[in-house]
């Protein structure tokens, strides 16, 4: 796993962005950037050479699921790994996210250990298919 990879954290709650940023720093990822919804995130993703996207689902403006769909539909971003970290925990929502091509799904409240496990799993899988 490349610890210099550029990560975008998208959440409308600044507290949650700060928590995820600190957890990622603790795991050795220092190159993190923040956006407060899909509309702010999208131009950053288009021009920012990001390696990884961590996004919430329920946000005012553009929702996380729509951001995921936009990423998968874009020829330059379609392979970007996406991790959803959200309080949305209904079965049909998880199915929807899987169908939209999500790489990992964490339900809030979550633990630092869960975040580490999901990151490891996502990058193991990507390495295996590369």
């Amino acid at each position: 796993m490349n610890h210099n990879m550029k990560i975008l954290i998208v959440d409308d709650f600044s507290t949650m962005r700060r928590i995820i940023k600190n957890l990622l720093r603790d795991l050795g990822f220092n190159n993190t950037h923040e956006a407060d919804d899909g509309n702010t995130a999208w131009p950053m993703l288009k021009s920012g050479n990001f390696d990884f996207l961590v996004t919430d689902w329920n946000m005012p403006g553009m929702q996380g699921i729509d951001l995921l769909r936009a990423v998968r539909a874009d020829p330059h971003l379609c392979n970007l790994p996406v991790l959803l970290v959200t309080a949305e925990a209904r079965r049909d929502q998880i199915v929807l996210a899987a169908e939209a091509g999500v790489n990992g799904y964490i339900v809030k409240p979550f633990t630092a250990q869960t975040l580490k496990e999901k990151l490891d799993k996502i990058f193991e899988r990507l390495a295996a298919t590369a």
Partner: protein
Amino acid sequence: MDQAERLALARQLVEALERGAHEAADHCLQVLSDHRGSQLLRHVAEVTRDVHQAFGGVVSDQRLYEISKHVMPDARERLSYVVEKSEESAHRTLAAVEEMLPLAERLCAAAEAEVREAGTRLRAGLTDVLMAQEYQDLTGQVIKKTIDIVEQVEQKLVSLIIAERLATGHPVACAKPARGEATGPAIKPAADVMSHQHDVDDLLAELGV
């Protein structure tokens, strides 16, 4: 139509069906269903009248006006205050944790084993404090949703009151604000909600993610 009449019609219907007299059978059915229909309509009319009377009484009630005018906006303000204050508090906690984490790192790199162990424990404790702040996101989402609901109900009430005032021509006079009692939201997990990460993992594995 009384019980005996209905019974007689039912007998006629059976008898007509048995001898293959379809027109006579259809006629019996028509009479029976017309009767049901008019009974239903009468019930609907009664219920509508009751609802209309009850509704008119409620809407012209002064308390309802006070609730929509003062109590509900006040409740929204209080809820917004809770979101604001808990967010501020969470940020203060996070700032303190961020300041202490490098100190814990320094202890972790110390020469003495005892200090290193203290550093490791301090680091783990600070991470716990950090994670505990996520309540602010979760409760904040619930409260923001509640504020939206209160606002929607408030708007509907206001438009009802305006409609009633226009219909009756009774202006609603201002009185002292009514006292409202706030109770916290009760949150029950629904059956199709994945309340544990391992449930989510199982489902994703089924879906090949």
